[in-house]
Protein backbone atom coordinates (compact mmCIF):
# COMPACT_ATOMS: atom_id res chain seq x y z
CA UNK A 1 0.00 0.00 0.00
CA UNK A 2 2.77 2.35 1.08
CA UNK A 3 4.82 1.36 -1.99
CA UNK A 4 1.84 2.01 -4.28
CA UNK A 5 1.29 5.49 -2.78
CA UNK A 6 4.94 6.39 -3.31
CA UNK A 7 4.74 5.27 -6.93
CA UNK A 8 1.68 7.46 -7.51
CA UNK A 9 3.43 10.49 -6.00
CA UNK A 10 6.54 9.99 -8.14
CA UNK A 11 4.48 9.73 -11.31
CA UNK A 12 2.50 12.83 -10.37
CA UNK A 13 5.71 14.82 -9.78
CA UNK A 14 7.05 13.80 -13.16
CA UNK A 15 3.86 14.89 -14.83
CA UNK A 16 3.90 18.40 -13.35
CA UNK A 17 5.41 20.82 -15.83
CA UNK A 18 8.58 22.73 -14.79
CA UNK A 19 7.73 25.56 -12.43
CA UNK A 20 9.64 28.68 -11.41
CA UNK A 21 11.11 26.76 -8.51
CA UNK A 22 12.85 24.52 -11.00
CA UNK A 23 14.64 27.26 -12.88
CA UNK A 24 18.33 26.50 -13.37
CA UNK A 25 20.75 28.98 -11.87
CA UNK A 26 21.63 31.91 -14.09
CA UNK A 27 23.93 34.91 -14.09
CA UNK A 28 22.92 38.43 -14.99
CA UNK A 29 25.26 41.10 -16.33
CA UNK A 30 24.25 44.75 -16.64
CA UNK A 31 26.19 47.82 -17.70
CA UNK A 32 26.28 50.57 -16.51
CA UNK A 33 25.59 50.15 -12.82
CA UNK A 34 25.79 53.68 -11.48
CA UNK A 35 23.89 56.91 -12.06
CA UNK A 36 25.36 60.10 -10.58
CA UNK A 37 22.88 62.90 -10.07
CA UNK A 38 23.24 66.41 -8.80
CA UNK A 39 21.26 69.61 -8.38
CA UNK A 40 21.60 70.49 -12.04
CA UNK A 41 21.43 66.94 -13.36
CA UNK A 42 18.49 65.40 -11.50
CA UNK A 43 18.43 62.24 -13.60
CA UNK A 44 20.53 60.03 -15.85
CA UNK A 45 19.57 59.11 -19.37
CA UNK A 46 21.08 55.65 -19.56
CA UNK A 47 21.26 52.83 -22.05
CA UNK A 48 21.52 49.50 -20.27
CA UNK A 49 23.18 46.52 -21.90
CA UNK A 50 21.76 43.45 -20.21
CA UNK A 51 23.00 39.90 -20.68
CA UNK A 52 22.13 36.68 -18.94
CA UNK A 53 23.38 33.14 -19.10
CA UNK A 54 22.02 30.01 -17.45
CA UNK A 55 23.20 26.48 -16.86
CA UNK A 56 20.34 25.03 -18.88
CA UNK A 57 17.65 26.24 -21.22
CA UNK A 58 14.40 27.37 -19.64
CA UNK A 59 11.88 30.12 -19.90
CA UNK A 60 13.36 33.21 -18.27
CA UNK A 61 11.96 36.69 -17.93
CA UNK A 62 13.79 39.94 -17.26
CA UNK A 63 12.07 42.16 -14.71
CA UNK A 64 12.78 45.33 -12.85
CA UNK A 65 11.67 46.42 -9.42
CA UNK A 66 9.90 49.49 -10.78
CA UNK A 67 7.10 47.56 -12.50
CA UNK A 68 5.15 44.34 -12.20
CA UNK A 69 5.14 43.16 -15.79
CA UNK A 70 8.31 41.56 -17.19
CA UNK A 71 10.40 43.66 -19.56
CA UNK A 72 11.03 40.70 -21.80
CA UNK A 73 10.75 36.90 -21.76
CA UNK A 74 12.82 34.30 -23.60
CA UNK A 75 11.24 30.90 -24.34
CA UNK A 76 13.49 27.94 -23.54
CA UNK A 77 16.89 29.57 -23.95
CA UNK A 78 20.13 29.44 -21.95
CA UNK A 79 21.27 32.99 -22.72
CA UNK A 80 19.87 36.27 -23.86
CA UNK A 81 20.59 39.94 -24.36
CA UNK A 82 18.49 43.03 -24.03
CA UNK A 83 19.10 46.74 -24.46
CA UNK A 84 16.99 49.30 -22.73
CA UNK A 85 17.03 53.07 -22.63
CA UNK A 86 15.59 54.76 -19.59
CA UNK A 87 15.78 57.87 -17.47
CA UNK A 88 16.94 56.99 -13.99
CA UNK A 89 16.28 59.05 -10.86
CA UNK A 90 16.11 56.31 -8.23
CA UNK A 91 17.90 53.06 -7.54
CA UNK A 92 16.21 49.93 -8.85
CA UNK A 93 16.87 46.24 -9.46
CA UNK A 94 16.99 44.22 -12.63
CA UNK A 95 16.17 40.63 -11.92
CA UNK A 96 15.84 37.40 -13.84
CA UNK A 97 13.13 34.90 -13.02
CA UNK A 98 10.45 32.64 -14.39
CA UNK A 99 7.40 33.79 -16.30
CA UNK A 100 5.21 33.69 -13.20
CA UNK A 101 7.48 36.14 -11.39
CA UNK A 102 7.77 34.06 -8.23
CA UNK A 103 11.46 33.19 -8.31
CA UNK A 104 14.52 35.36 -8.74
CA UNK A 105 17.52 33.46 -9.97
CA UNK A 106 19.73 36.53 -10.42
CA UNK A 107 19.51 40.23 -9.69
CA UNK A 108 21.58 43.38 -10.06
CA UNK A 109 21.01 46.72 -8.36
CA UNK A 110 21.42 49.93 -10.33
CA UNK A 111 22.72 52.47 -7.84
CA UNK A 112 21.99 56.18 -7.79
CA UNK A 113 24.53 58.44 -6.13
CA UNK A 114 23.22 61.86 -5.20
CA UNK A 115 25.96 64.50 -4.85
CA UNK A 116 23.82 67.31 -3.49
CA UNK A 117 22.33 67.08 -0.06
CA UNK A 118 19.23 68.26 1.75
CA UNK A 119 21.60 69.49 4.45
CA UNK A 120 23.91 72.05 2.88
CA UNK A 121 26.25 71.90 5.89
CA UNK A 122 27.45 68.61 4.41
CA UNK A 123 28.96 70.55 1.52
CA UNK A 124 30.98 73.01 3.58
CA UNK A 125 34.68 73.24 2.91
CA UNK A 126 37.30 73.06 5.58
CA UNK A 127 40.67 74.75 5.66
CA UNK A 128 42.51 72.08 7.56
CA UNK A 129 45.81 70.87 6.24
CA UNK A 130 44.64 67.33 5.64
CA UNK A 131 41.45 68.41 3.96
CA UNK A 132 42.46 68.61 0.35
CA UNK A 133 39.31 67.32 -1.29
Amino acid sequence: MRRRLAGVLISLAAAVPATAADLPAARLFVKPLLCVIDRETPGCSMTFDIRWKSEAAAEYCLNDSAQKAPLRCWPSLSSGTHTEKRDVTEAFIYWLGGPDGTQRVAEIRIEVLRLDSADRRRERRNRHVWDVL
Partner: protein
Amino acid sequence: MKIAALLAVAALAHGQDAAPAGTAAAGSASAPPAAERHWRLGAAFGYGERSNPLIQSDDIPVIVDLDVAWFGKRWFFDNGDIGYTLADGPRSTTSMVARLNSDRIFFGKTDTRYVNITYLSGNATTPAPPLLAPVEVKPPDRDYAIELGVESLLDGDWGAATLRAYHDVSGTHGGFELAAYYSRRFTTGRFSLEPTLGVSYKSADLNDYYWGVHANEASAALLEYHAGAGFNLEGGLVANYYISRNLRLALSFNYERLADDIADSPLSEDDYVMAYFSGLAWTF
Protein backbone atom coordinates in the same frame (compact mmCIF):
# COMPACT_ATOMS: atom_id res chain seq x y z
CA MET B 1 34.00 96.42 14.07
CA LYS B 2 34.57 92.71 14.70
CA ILE B 3 31.15 92.00 16.13
CA ALA B 4 29.58 94.12 13.42
CA ALA B 5 31.34 92.03 10.80
CA LEU B 6 30.02 88.80 12.31
CA LEU B 7 26.50 90.12 12.41
CA ALA B 8 26.76 91.48 8.90
CA VAL B 9 27.64 88.04 7.55
CA ALA B 10 24.62 86.49 9.20
CA ALA B 11 22.30 89.26 8.12
CA LEU B 12 23.58 89.31 4.56
CA ALA B 13 23.17 85.59 4.20
CA HIS B 14 19.82 85.25 5.82
CA GLY B 15 17.60 88.19 5.58
CA GLN B 16 14.34 87.04 7.12
CA ASP B 17 14.30 83.29 7.01
CA ALA B 18 14.84 81.20 10.11
CA ALA B 19 13.45 77.72 9.74
CA PRO B 20 14.65 74.69 11.68
CA ALA B 21 17.85 73.09 10.48
CA GLY B 22 17.84 70.03 8.33
CA THR B 23 14.87 70.92 6.19
CA ALA B 24 14.85 70.99 2.43
CA ALA B 25 17.53 72.47 0.26
CA ALA B 26 15.91 74.91 -2.00
CA GLY B 27 16.40 75.47 -5.63
CA SER B 28 17.19 71.86 -6.28
CA ALA B 29 15.60 70.44 -9.32
CA SER B 30 14.41 67.42 -7.43
CA ALA B 31 14.06 66.91 -3.70
CA PRO B 32 16.96 64.95 -2.23
CA PRO B 33 16.15 62.06 0.06
CA ALA B 34 14.79 63.22 3.39
CA ALA B 35 16.72 60.83 5.57
CA GLU B 36 20.49 61.10 5.55
CA ARG B 37 22.73 59.38 8.02
CA HIS B 38 24.08 61.52 10.83
CA TRP B 39 27.62 60.28 10.35
CA ARG B 40 29.76 60.87 7.31
CA LEU B 41 32.91 58.81 7.30
CA GLY B 42 35.42 58.62 4.52
CA ALA B 43 39.07 58.18 3.74
CA ALA B 44 41.15 59.06 0.71
CA PHE B 45 44.48 57.40 0.05
CA GLY B 46 46.93 58.78 -2.43
CA TYR B 47 49.56 61.42 -2.53
CA GLY B 48 49.51 65.16 -2.27
CA GLU B 49 51.31 68.07 -0.71
CA ARG B 50 50.52 71.42 0.77
CA SER B 51 53.38 73.84 0.30
CA ASN B 52 54.69 75.66 3.34
CA PRO B 53 55.49 79.35 2.90
CA LEU B 54 57.34 79.48 6.23
CA ILE B 55 61.13 79.70 6.00
CA GLN B 56 63.12 76.60 6.86
CA SER B 57 60.06 74.45 6.81
CA ASP B 58 59.07 71.38 4.93
CA ASP B 59 56.09 71.07 2.69
CA ILE B 60 53.31 69.08 4.27
CA PRO B 61 52.72 65.69 2.67
CA VAL B 62 49.17 64.41 2.49
CA ILE B 63 48.96 60.64 2.19
CA VAL B 64 45.61 60.09 3.84
CA ASP B 65 42.71 62.51 3.85
CA LEU B 66 40.24 61.45 6.52
CA ASP B 67 36.69 62.70 6.59
CA VAL B 68 34.90 62.41 9.92
CA ALA B 69 31.73 64.40 10.35
CA TRP B 70 28.46 64.21 12.25
CA PHE B 71 25.41 66.31 11.50
CA GLY B 72 22.52 66.64 13.91
CA LYS B 73 19.49 68.85 13.62
CA ARG B 74 21.42 71.84 14.94
CA TRP B 75 24.77 70.66 16.26
CA PHE B 76 27.43 69.35 13.95
CA PHE B 77 31.02 68.24 13.97
CA ASP B 78 32.93 68.53 10.73
CA ASN B 79 36.56 67.40 10.76
CA GLY B 80 37.46 69.38 13.83
CA ASP B 81 34.99 72.22 13.46
CA ILE B 82 32.11 72.27 15.92
CA GLY B 83 28.99 74.10 14.88
CA TYR B 84 25.51 75.01 16.00
CA THR B 85 23.02 75.91 13.29
CA LEU B 86 21.19 79.11 14.05
CA ALA B 87 18.92 79.24 11.02
CA ASP B 88 18.21 77.12 7.99
CA GLY B 89 16.12 78.43 5.16
CA PRO B 90 15.37 77.67 1.54
CA ARG B 91 18.38 79.62 0.33
CA SER B 92 20.89 79.62 3.17
CA THR B 93 22.05 78.01 6.37
CA THR B 94 23.78 80.01 9.08
CA SER B 95 25.74 78.44 11.89
CA MET B 96 27.93 79.45 14.76
CA VAL B 97 31.23 77.58 14.34
CA ALA B 98 34.28 77.04 16.53
CA ARG B 99 37.49 76.04 14.79
CA LEU B 100 41.26 76.05 15.07
CA ASN B 101 43.14 78.65 13.08
CA SER B 102 44.67 77.22 9.92
CA ASP B 103 47.85 79.35 9.88
CA ARG B 104 49.32 77.43 12.81
CA ILE B 105 49.81 74.30 10.73
CA PHE B 106 52.72 75.87 8.89
CA PHE B 107 54.71 76.17 12.12
CA GLY B 108 54.74 72.47 12.83
CA LYS B 109 57.55 71.30 10.56
CA THR B 110 60.42 73.71 11.09
CA ASP B 111 64.20 73.31 11.11
CA THR B 112 66.93 75.31 12.78
CA ARG B 113 69.67 76.59 10.49
CA TYR B 114 72.80 78.63 11.04
CA VAL B 115 73.69 81.44 8.68
CA ASN B 116 76.72 83.64 8.31
CA ILE B 117 75.83 87.29 8.19
CA THR B 118 78.05 89.51 6.08
CA TYR B 119 78.19 93.28 6.03
CA LEU B 120 77.79 94.95 2.71
CA SER B 121 80.92 96.96 2.14
CA GLY B 122 80.99 100.17 0.16
CA ASN B 123 83.46 98.64 -2.27
CA ALA B 124 81.94 95.74 -4.13
CA THR B 125 85.30 94.25 -4.95
CA THR B 126 86.25 93.92 -1.30
CA PRO B 127 84.98 90.71 0.28
CA ALA B 128 82.99 91.46 3.36
CA PRO B 129 84.28 89.93 6.56
CA PRO B 130 82.03 87.40 8.25
CA LEU B 131 80.70 87.97 11.72
CA LEU B 132 82.35 86.16 14.54
CA ALA B 133 79.86 83.31 14.73
CA PRO B 134 77.01 82.00 12.65
CA VAL B 135 73.62 83.20 13.77
CA GLU B 136 70.95 80.70 14.65
CA VAL B 137 67.82 81.13 12.59
CA LYS B 138 64.86 79.23 13.86
CA PRO B 139 61.28 80.01 12.90
CA PRO B 140 59.45 81.05 16.05
CA ASP B 141 56.82 78.94 17.74
CA ARG B 142 53.21 79.85 17.31
CA ASP B 143 50.18 78.54 19.16
CA TYR B 144 46.89 77.28 17.87
CA ALA B 145 44.09 79.78 18.21
CA ILE B 146 40.50 78.79 18.87
CA GLU B 147 38.28 80.95 16.74
CA LEU B 148 34.55 81.40 17.00
CA GLY B 149 32.47 82.82 14.24
CA VAL B 150 29.46 82.86 12.01
CA GLU B 151 29.29 80.92 8.77
CA SER B 152 26.59 81.19 6.15
CA LEU B 153 26.16 78.71 3.33
CA LEU B 154 24.10 79.84 0.36
CA ASP B 155 23.16 77.99 -2.78
CA GLY B 156 20.92 78.11 -5.78
CA ASP B 157 20.98 77.63 -9.51
CA TRP B 158 23.92 80.00 -9.65
CA GLY B 159 26.16 77.78 -7.52
CA ALA B 160 27.14 77.87 -3.86
CA ALA B 161 28.73 80.49 -1.66
CA THR B 162 30.21 80.52 1.80
CA LEU B 163 30.53 83.62 3.98
CA ARG B 164 32.61 83.38 7.12
CA ALA B 165 33.60 85.70 9.93
CA TYR B 166 35.78 84.36 12.74
CA HIS B 167 37.32 85.97 15.78
CA ASP B 168 39.93 84.61 18.15
CA VAL B 169 38.38 83.67 21.48
CA SER B 170 41.46 82.03 22.98
CA GLY B 171 43.49 85.19 23.43
CA THR B 172 46.16 83.87 21.09
CA HIS B 173 46.25 86.45 18.33
CA GLY B 174 43.24 88.59 19.18
CA GLY B 175 42.42 89.14 15.51
CA PHE B 176 39.71 88.19 13.10
CA GLU B 177 39.17 86.84 9.59
CA LEU B 178 36.45 87.49 7.05
CA ALA B 179 36.14 85.19 4.05
CA ALA B 180 33.92 84.58 1.05
CA TYR B 181 34.03 81.63 -1.33
CA TYR B 182 32.12 80.79 -4.46
CA SER B 183 31.94 77.38 -6.08
CA ARG B 184 29.92 75.59 -8.67
CA ARG B 185 29.84 71.88 -9.35
CA PHE B 186 29.42 70.52 -12.86
CA THR B 187 28.37 66.90 -13.16
CA THR B 188 28.26 64.84 -16.31
CA GLY B 189 28.00 61.08 -16.30
CA ARG B 190 30.24 59.80 -13.52
CA PHE B 191 32.46 62.84 -13.58
CA SER B 192 32.15 65.97 -11.49
CA LEU B 193 34.25 69.11 -11.57
CA GLU B 194 34.04 71.86 -8.98
CA PRO B 195 36.01 75.09 -9.33
CA THR B 196 36.21 77.42 -6.34
CA LEU B 197 37.20 81.06 -5.95
CA GLY B 198 37.71 82.74 -2.63
CA VAL B 199 38.98 85.79 -0.84
CA SER B 200 39.79 86.21 2.82
CA TYR B 201 40.68 89.27 4.83
CA LYS B 202 42.89 88.72 7.84
CA SER B 203 43.29 91.41 10.44
CA ALA B 204 46.60 92.95 11.43
CA ASP B 205 46.51 91.23 14.82
CA LEU B 206 46.07 87.83 13.22
CA ASN B 207 48.72 88.33 10.56
CA ASP B 208 51.18 89.90 12.94
CA TYR B 209 50.88 87.12 15.49
CA TYR B 210 51.66 84.39 12.96
CA TRP B 211 53.81 86.20 10.40
CA GLY B 212 55.38 89.07 12.30
CA VAL B 213 58.87 88.86 13.80
CA HIS B 214 58.34 90.08 17.32
CA ALA B 215 60.93 92.12 19.19
CA ASN B 216 62.00 89.22 21.38
CA GLU B 217 62.47 87.00 18.30
CA ALA B 218 64.46 89.42 16.18
CA SER B 219 68.12 88.84 15.43
CA ALA B 220 70.69 89.90 12.88
CA ALA B 221 69.35 87.21 10.59
CA LEU B 222 65.67 87.73 11.35
CA LEU B 223 64.78 91.38 11.47
CA GLU B 224 61.85 92.65 13.45
CA TYR B 225 58.74 92.86 11.29
CA HIS B 226 55.13 93.81 11.86
CA ALA B 227 52.56 92.37 9.50
CA GLY B 228 49.46 94.35 8.74
CA ALA B 229 46.05 93.30 7.54
CA GLY B 230 45.53 92.02 4.04
CA PHE B 231 43.61 89.94 1.55
CA ASN B 232 44.46 86.38 0.54
CA LEU B 233 43.08 85.25 -2.82
CA GLU B 234 42.35 81.63 -3.57
CA GLY B 235 41.38 79.40 -6.46
CA GLY B 236 40.87 75.67 -6.55
CA LEU B 237 39.57 72.78 -8.56
CA VAL B 238 38.28 69.40 -7.39
CA ALA B 239 37.55 66.63 -9.85
CA ASN B 240 35.94 63.32 -9.00
CA TYR B 241 35.31 60.24 -11.07
CA TYR B 242 32.82 57.94 -9.35
CA ILE B 243 33.80 54.33 -9.80
CA SER B 244 30.98 53.12 -7.59
CA ARG B 245 28.60 54.59 -5.05
CA ASN B 246 31.33 54.47 -2.41
CA LEU B 247 34.58 54.71 -4.34
CA ARG B 248 35.86 57.57 -6.41
CA LEU B 249 39.03 58.74 -8.03
CA ALA B 250 39.75 62.20 -6.69
CA LEU B 251 42.01 64.99 -7.88
CA SER B 252 42.34 68.39 -6.30
CA PHE B 253 44.41 71.49 -6.75
CA ASN B 254 44.35 74.69 -4.74
CA TYR B 255 46.37 77.89 -4.99
CA GLU B 256 46.28 80.69 -2.44
CA ARG B 257 48.03 84.00 -3.02
CA LEU B 258 49.10 85.38 0.33
CA ALA B 259 48.54 88.99 1.30
CA ASP B 260 51.52 91.27 0.72
CA ASP B 261 52.00 91.76 4.44
CA ILE B 262 52.40 88.01 4.88
CA ALA B 263 54.51 87.54 1.76
CA ASP B 264 56.88 90.37 2.75
CA SER B 265 57.54 88.89 6.17
CA PRO B 266 61.06 87.60 6.89
CA LEU B 267 59.26 84.42 7.98
CA SER B 268 57.83 83.85 4.49
CA GLU B 269 59.83 82.43 1.65
CA ASP B 270 56.87 82.10 -0.71
CA ASP B 271 53.99 84.39 -1.45
CA TYR B 272 51.62 81.50 -2.04
CA VAL B 273 50.35 78.21 -0.66
CA MET B 274 49.77 75.48 -3.18
CA ALA B 275 48.11 72.17 -2.46
CA TYR B 276 47.35 69.17 -4.58
CA PHE B 277 46.17 65.64 -4.03
CA SER B 278 45.29 62.65 -6.14
CA GLY B 279 44.03 59.35 -4.89
CA LEU B 280 41.18 57.02 -4.29
CA ALA B 281 38.52 58.14 -1.87
CA TRP B 282 36.12 55.82 -0.09
CA THR B 283 32.94 57.02 1.55
CA PHE B 284 31.41 54.63 4.07
